[in-house]
C-alpha cells in the first residue's frame, strides 16, 4: 500500500525519529512504513492520520490488489 508519510513528514520538517516518538513507535517502523514494506494496524494508522491532521484515506493509498480489484475489472473501468 502506498502512502504519503514521507511527503507529509518532510513538509513538517520532521525526522523519522521525531515522527516515531510522536506516534510511539521505533524509527525502524517509520522507515518500513515509508518504504511501503509494512502496512500499519488501524490504531497506528489513526494515530498517524491524527498527527498529520488528516484522514487515513488521505494518508494511505490502496492498490487495486489491496482493494481486491482484478486486472479484468481494472480494464472495464
Amino acid at each position, binding site marked *: 500500500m502506498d502512502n504519503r508519510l514521507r511527503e507529509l513528514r518532510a513538509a513538517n520538517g520532521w*525526522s523519522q525519529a521525531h515522527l516515531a516518538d510522536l506516534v510511539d513507535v521505533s*524509527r525502524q517502523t517509520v522507515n518500513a512504513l*515509508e518504504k511501503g514494506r509494512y502496512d500499519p494496524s488501524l490504531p*497506528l494508522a489513526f494515530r498517524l492520520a491524527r498527527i498529520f491532521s488528516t484522514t487515513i484515506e488521505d494518508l494511505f493509498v490502496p492498490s487495486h490488489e489491496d482493494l481486491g480489484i482484478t486486472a479484468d475489472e481494472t480494464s472495464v473501468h
Partner: protein
Amino acid sequence: MDQTERGTTRRTEAEPAWSAGDRQRRNAYFKEFIPAILAYAVILVLVLVLVDQESSWAWLWWQLPILPMVGVGVAFYRFLRQADEYIRTVQFQTMAVGFAAGIFASLVFGFLGIAGITTRATGWVVFGVAVAAWMVSLGWVGRR
C-alpha cells in the same frame, strides 16, 4: 533520508538512527539483559573450572548456567512487550525462521541417529542452527 540508485534509503547526518523512545526501550532491555548474560558467563566459567566431570552430581551443576538464562528470557519477553507492532512482527517472523531451521536440524540429526551416527553435540548444533538462522534473518530484514 536520501534515495540511492537501488531505491533503498540511507540516513543523512541530520537523521538520527535512534529516536528517544528507541533509546529508552534499548536501555531498559540492556539493563536487564547485560547482568543476566554476565551472570551466565561467570557461572559457565565457574562450572567449567570447578566441577569434577566424574562426579555423580556433575549433571546437576551443569544445569546452573540455565538459571541466569531465565533472566535473559525475561528481558527479551519484556523487550517484546514494549516493542511496537512492526518490531514485534519482524521478531516473530524471524524467530519462526529460527524455529524451522532448528526443527530441520533436529530432523537431520534424528535420521543420522537412526543410521547409527550420533554425537554428544547434537543439542548444541540444533541450538546453534536455530539461533544462527534467527539472527541471519533478523539481519537480513534489518538491511532491507
